[in-house]
C-alpha cells in the first residue's frame, strides 16, 4: 500500500538506493558531445591543487547516452585548465590532462587557452566517461577519462 504512514510498509529497497545514487550519472562509455558553452573562474578552494589557478567548466551535450535502454541527450560538465598540475602521486591532474587533450584535438596547441575553448565550441569531440560506483565513504560519480576527436 503506497502512501501509508506506517514506517514498516514504506521500506526503501537497495534498488531504490542504487537508482537514487545513479539517477543523474552517465553510464560508462564513449559519447560524442557538443560543447554548448563554458564558464571561467579562479579556483578558490584552498585544499584544491588548483587553488588560485584559472579553471574552465565546459557544458557539454552528450549524445546517445543509454538511459533506461533508450538513447538520450544528456548534459555533462567537464573541468579543464591550461595549468599543468600534478597530483601527489605524480600523475597529471584530470583537468590539466583534459585541457591538454582539448588543445590537441582543437589544433590549438601553443595558442592562448581562450582560443582552445572557443574552438571547442565548434569542434566535433568525443568524451570517454567512466562511472565509479559508491564505495565505502565515497559516493558514485562520473570521471572524464579522455577527450578525443570523433
Amino acid at each position, binding site marked *: 500500500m503506497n502512501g501509508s504512514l506506517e514506517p514498516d510498509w514504506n521500506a526503501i529497497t537497495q534498488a531504490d538506493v542504487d537508482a537514487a545514487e545513479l539517477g543523474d550519472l552517465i553510464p560508462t562509455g564513449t559519447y560524442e558531445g*557538443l560543447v*554548448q558553452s563554458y564558464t571561467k573562474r579562479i579556483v578558490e578552494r584552498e585544499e584544491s591543487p588548483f587553488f588560485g589557478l584559472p579553471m574552465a567548466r565546459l557544458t557539454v*551535450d552528450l549524445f546517445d547516452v543509454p538511459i533506461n535502454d533508450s538513447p538520450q*541527450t544528456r548534459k555533462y560538465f567537464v573541468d579543464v585548465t591550461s595549468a599543468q598540475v600534478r597530483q601527489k602521486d605524480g600523475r597529471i591532474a584530470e583537468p590539466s590532462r583534459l585541457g591538454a587533450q582539448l588543445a590537441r584535438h582543437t589544433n590549438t596547441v601553443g595558442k592562448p587557452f581562450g582560443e582552445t575553448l572557443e574552438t571547442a565550441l*565548434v569542434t566535433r569531440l568525443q568524451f570517454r566517461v567512466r562511472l565509479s560506483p559508491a564505495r565505502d565513504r565515497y559516493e558514485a560519480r562520473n570521471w572524464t577519462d579522455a577527450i578525443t*576527436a*570523433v
Partner: protein
Amino acid sequence: MASDQERDRRLKTAKKAIKELGHTYKEVAATLERRHARGVPSHIRDCPLARYLSDVVGAPVWVTGSALGVGGRTDIASMLSLPFHLRQFVYLFDGGAFPQLKECEFFHNSNEEIRQ
C-alpha cells in the same frame, strides 16, 4: 527559436537534401565536390556537409559525427540522426580523406577575420 512550422520545413528540406547527396560516402563526397562545397575538418558549422546543408536549408546547420541540427544548437527538436554513410563521410573527412573538399588554410583564416 524557429516556429514549429518553420522547424518542420527546415527539417524536411534537410532530409530531402541528405537523400540527394547519395547513398554511399563516396557519392556524398562526389556530390559535394560537384556542388563546390568546401570546408574545414572537424568543424561542426564549417565542414563541407554543414555548409552545403546550410545553403540548401537557408538556416545554420551544424553537423556532429552522429547527428545534425538545424538552427539553434540547444534546440533538440531540430536534430536529425545522421545516416550511416554520412557518419562514414564525416569520419573520413575529419581523418584527412577527400582533400579536394578541404578549404585551404589561408581561405579559412580570411573567413575568421571577416567574421570578427
